[in-house]
């Protein structure tokens, strides 16, 4: 690893620590990281969407036409339609003609809603309904072991829980009497399900933090890796510069905290 790469990794470590500082409070270091990532990511997406979005989907389709014929002589002239709709979006730059941008928006939203109706009806309603029509496992009704998800009683609980959950989502009927009781059982099932999936994701989130510890650990070992041929005093200099900077900030805040508590 040469010195240039080490500098880049140190910048990464600095930005990691300043983003973590958000846990303490909103401070200048976090503001730097925040505004930097907003600008750089916006720039990144402009470049990516240009090379991977606009060039393959539009320019390459019209590239065998000529601009003085307004690309009408290209082999796929119908690609001009989305280009025109795209340009119409730019009418929002002017106050007077901003309403014209509603046309491309209407096409965009119309397509989105049209696609959604049969797709969501099929995936979310038909397929789930067909999945509930399962033959209860009567043979091993009590299943084996402490709690068996494949047993008959579990399948009944799934069925009754799903139906009760649907009862909870009725809008035009008050949750009173028997209807209310079924709905209550439904929301209870929902809560148990949500609690279980909350507990299940904790492990994934902790491993994200472990990944960041490994990142900083890697940066630390790189600083002290004497066996690296182009290791130099500068590696340690920048390492200690950052560590002492953080330490100074922590001490400063501690002093302010104690002074505040004393007052």
């Amino acid at each position, binding site marked *: 690893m040469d010195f240039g790469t080490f500098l880049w990794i140190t910048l990464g470590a600095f930005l990691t620590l300043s983003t973590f500082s958000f*846990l*303490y409070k909103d401070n200048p270091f976090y503001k730097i990281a925040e505004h930097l990532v907003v600008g750089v990511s916006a720039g990144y997406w402009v470049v990516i969407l240009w090379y991977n979005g606009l060039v393959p989907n539009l320019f390459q389709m019209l590239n065998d036409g000529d601009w003085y014929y307004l690309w009408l002589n290209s082999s796929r002239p119908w690609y001009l339609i989305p280009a025109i709709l795209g340009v119409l979006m730019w009418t929002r730059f002017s106050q007077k003609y901003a309403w014209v941008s509603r046309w491309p928006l209407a096409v965009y939203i119309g397509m989105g809603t049209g696609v959604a109706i049969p797709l969501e009806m099929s995936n979310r309603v038909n397929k789930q309904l067909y999945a509930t029509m399962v033959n209860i496992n009567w043979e091993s009704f009590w299943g084996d072991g402490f709690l068996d998800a494949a047993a008959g009683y579990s399948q009944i609980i799934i069925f009754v829980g799903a139906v009760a959950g649907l009862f909870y989502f009725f809008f035009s009927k008050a949750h009173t009497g028997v209807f209310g009781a079924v709905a209550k059982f439904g929301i209870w099932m929902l809560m148990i399900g949500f609690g279980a999936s909350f507990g299940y994701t*904790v*492990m994934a989130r*902790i*491993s994200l*933090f*472990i990944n960041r*510890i490994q990142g900083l650990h890697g940066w630390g070992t790189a600083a002290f890796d004497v066996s690296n041929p182009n290791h130099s005093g500068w590696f340690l200099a920048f390492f200690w510069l950052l560590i002492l900077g953080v330490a100074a900030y922590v001490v400063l805040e501690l002093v302010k905290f104690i002074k505040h508590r004393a007052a």
Partner: protein
Amino acid sequence: MNIFDRIMTLDRRWVFLFLAIVCVVTYFIPFRIPVTVDDEVEVIYEFVDTLKPGQIVMVPLDYDPSTVAELHPMTYAIFEHCFRKQLKVIVTSLHPNGPGMAEQALLDVADSMKLDRTYNGVTYRGREVKTGFDYTFLGYKPYPALVILGMGQNFRLPFPTDYYGIPLDSLPMMQGVQNYDQVAGVINVSGTSGTDYWISYGQGRFGFPLALGLTGVMGADYYPYLNSGQVFGLMAGLYGAAQYEELADNAGPAIDGMRVQVYAHIVIIMFIIMGNVGYFISRREKNKKLKG
């Protein structure tokens, strides 16, 4: 503002600080934590442990860099255990960008075998683990089903040479080894659908003992194969790898990872309980004040 109110309204930054300290400490200090072992992992360890030196185990690695974090610890633990028992290992990779990692794993474990080590009280003298003698790495060939079926007839059909281009017949370990009949068992470590081919075309057709090492997410879907007996053992995710490392008395990255996870979970559970205890007691006092 008695102690319970303070517990309930602790400033969340203490929670952050405490969790950060616990995670960093448990990450860097390698103390041992007990790992409860499930039978479906123990059965794989027992299978490898009871094999006699010279018997052949096949370890197909069907995963790519995206699932390395979860599956490499498993691969290292299995290789180390097999070499310790002086078993012969045949390794294939049915994933196009798998061979590089598989070869790296073999070389790393071969290096670690050079030193004398003691596991579960038994000392193993360091020895030279060499390709062609202790392990054969066959590399990658497309069409997993055909490769598995081909190896069922003869390894030389899909793999005339090993990964380094040496014909199988001139590898001492492969003398007289035709197909799965000479293989004691197969442990498939996979993060892809390659596992389904091993189950249906491998174990299904040739009946050799098959065990699986999978990612955490995939693990749950393959329990039915365990119950139906098509697969005799199943390890899932970092937790499965940690159990194998525990059994092999060879603490590695999986146990390190699990140590941080276990203590982080304990910290969070502790804060939940603390918050609720504070809540109930302060609510009881509020009711007493209202009634009083």
